[in-house]
C-alpha cells in the first residue's frame, strides 16, 4: 500500500517535510527580526519611519503571498538579477522563497507586536520616562519585554500560519511538501492515502507548536 513512497527519492517524503521545516524556521527567525524592527519604526518618534512602517504593513498585508513569492522569482531574480549569492537554481528558489515569506510574514508579526505594546499599561512607560530613560531604552528594557510575553499567543498563530504558508513556495519550484504531494497525487492511484499522509504531516507539524506555545503563553503571561 505504501510501496509507491520508495519511488520518490528526490526528495523523499521526509526530505520534503524537512524542507518545509527549514523554510518555516528560517522565515520565522527572519520575520521576527524584521517584524520587530517594523513595529519599533511604527511607534518611533521619527515621523518618516512611522510613515514607512505603516505604509509597508498596509501594502504588504493586502497583497496575496502567492503574488509576492512568484514575484521574487520572475521579478527579483530574473529582472533585477538578485541571485541570493548562489548559482544553483534549487538553492536560489529556496532562498527567494524565504525572502518572500519574511517580507510577508513580518507585516503580521509587526501588527501582533504593536498590539502587544498597546497592552502594556501606560504607567510602565511613564515611569520609565520619569527615571530618564531614552526612547530606545524605554522600548528595549521596559515595554518590549512585557509586550513580547503578552503576544506569544498571537505570534504562535502567525507561526502556525507561516508553517502552512510555506506550501506557497511550491509555486516557484521549491521541493517542499506541497510540490511533492502534487507530483505524487498526479502519478499515483491512491489519491486519498496521499492526501491523508500529507495532511497528517502538517497536523504533526502544527499541533505540537500550537499546544506548546499555548502553554508557554499562559505560563509567561504578565499577571496584572
Amino acid at each position, binding site marked *: 500500500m505504501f510501496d509507491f513512497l520508495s519511488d520518490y527519492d528526490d526528495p523523499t517524503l521526509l526530505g520534503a517535510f524537512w524542507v518545509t521545516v527549514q523554510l518555516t524556521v528560517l522565515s520565522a527567525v527572519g520575520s521576527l527580526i524584521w517584524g520587530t524592527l517594523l513595529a519599533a519604526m511604527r511607534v518611533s518618534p521619527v515621523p518618516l519611519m512611522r510613515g514607512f512602517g505603516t505604509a509597508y504593513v498596509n501594502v504588504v498585508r493586502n497583497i496575496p503571498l502567492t503574488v509576492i513569492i512568484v514575484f521574487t522569482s520572475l521579478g527579483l531574480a530574473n529582472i533585477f538579477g538578485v541571485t541570493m549569492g548562489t548559482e544553483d537554481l534549487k538553492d536560489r528558489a529556496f532562498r527567494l522563497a524565504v525572502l518572500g515569506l519574511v517580507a510577508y510574514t513580518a507585516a503580521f508579526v509587526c501588527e501582533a507586536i504593536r498590539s502587544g505594546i498597546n497592552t502594556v499599561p501606560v504607567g510602565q512607560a511613564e515611569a520609565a520616562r520619569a527615571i530618564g530613560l531614552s526612547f530606545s531604552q524605554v522600548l528595549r528594557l521596559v515595554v518590549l519585554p512585557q509586550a513580547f510575553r503578552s503576544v506569544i499567543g498571537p505570534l504562535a*498563530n502567525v507561526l502556525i500560519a507561516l508553517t502552512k504558508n510555506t506550501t506557497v513556495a511550491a509555486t516557484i519550484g521549491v521541493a517542499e511538501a506541497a510540490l511533492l504531494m502534487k507530483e505524487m497525487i498526479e502519478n499515483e492511484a491512491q489519491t486519498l492515502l496521499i492526501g491523508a499522509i500529507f495532511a497528517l504531516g502538517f497536523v504533526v507539524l502544527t499541533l505540537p507548536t500550537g499546544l506548546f506555545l499555548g502553554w508557554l503563553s499562559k505560563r509567561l503571561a504578565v499577571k496584572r
Partner: protein
Amino acid sequence: MTSVLYDAPGPRAKRRNVLFSVVFFVLVALLLWWVWQTMDEKGQLEWALWKPFTTSEAWTTYLLPGLADTLKAAALSMVIALPLGAILGIARMSDHRWVRIPAGAVVEFFRAIPVLLLMLFANEFYVRSTGIPSDERPLYAVVTGLVLYNASVLAEVVRAGILSLPKGQSEAAMAIGLRKSQTMSGILLPQAVTAMLPAIVSQLVVIVKDTALGGVMIGFTELLNTRSTLAANYANVIPSFIVVAVIFVVLNFILTSFASWLERRLRRSKRSTGAVLGAEKVDDLNAAEVGGTYGTGAGGSI
C-alpha cells in the same frame, strides 16, 4: 498611544530626530534609486511596456476577466462556507458529546491543513471521480479548497460570536420557555451574526488572497494567472506585477475599510448588546481564547 513612549522632543531630541530622518530618507532613496536604475537598465520603464494598461484591450482581454474570476471564486466560497461554518460552529457548542466532538475534530483538522493541499486534493479528486469538464474544474477545485478551510475558520468565528453575547440573553430565552433550538435560531444567532459581520468581511480578504494560489498551481484563470498571459504577450513582467499588486491592494483595502466602518457603526448602535467581534479578531482566533482550554491553535489565517 505611541506618544506615551517618548516625551515631547526638546532641542537635542529634535536634532537627533532630524538626523535619523535624514539617514533613513537617504537609505530609502538609495533603495528606490537602485530599483529605478535596474528597471531602466532592463528596459522595464519603457513606455511601450506600460502603454497596454492605457488601452482597453489589456483590461478587457486579461485583467478584468481575471479579476472577475477572482471575485467569483471568493464570493462563491464565502456564500457556501458561511452556512457550513455556522452549522459546524453551533454543532461544536452542542450539549451532546457525539455531536460536539466530531464537529470539533473536523474544524481543527481543516484549520491545520494548508489551503493549497486541499485545492490540489480537490482538483485530483474531480479529475478521477467526477465528470466536471476540464475548463471548469479549476474553479470547482479552488472553491472546494477555500470552502473546506474557511468553513472551519468561520465555525470558530460563529462560536466566538455566540460566546461574546451576554449570558442574560440565553437565560432570558430559557426563562420564557424557549427550546434550545429556538433560543439559538431566534435569540442568539441573529445577534451573533451582527456581532460577527466585521470579522466575516475581513475573512473575505483572506479568501481573495488565497484564490491566487489556484492560479499558479491548478491553472485557475484568476488575476495572477491572466497576468502571466498578459506579460507573455507584451513582455512587461514588472509593470504587470505592479498593476496586479495595486489591484489587489485597492480591492483588499476597500474590504478592510468596509469591515472597520461596520465595526465602528455596530459599536455605536444602541440596539445591539454591545458585543462586536472586531475585524482584527479573526487573526488571533484561537481555541485557547474561545474555549478556555488549549486548542490546537491552528488559527491565524493570514
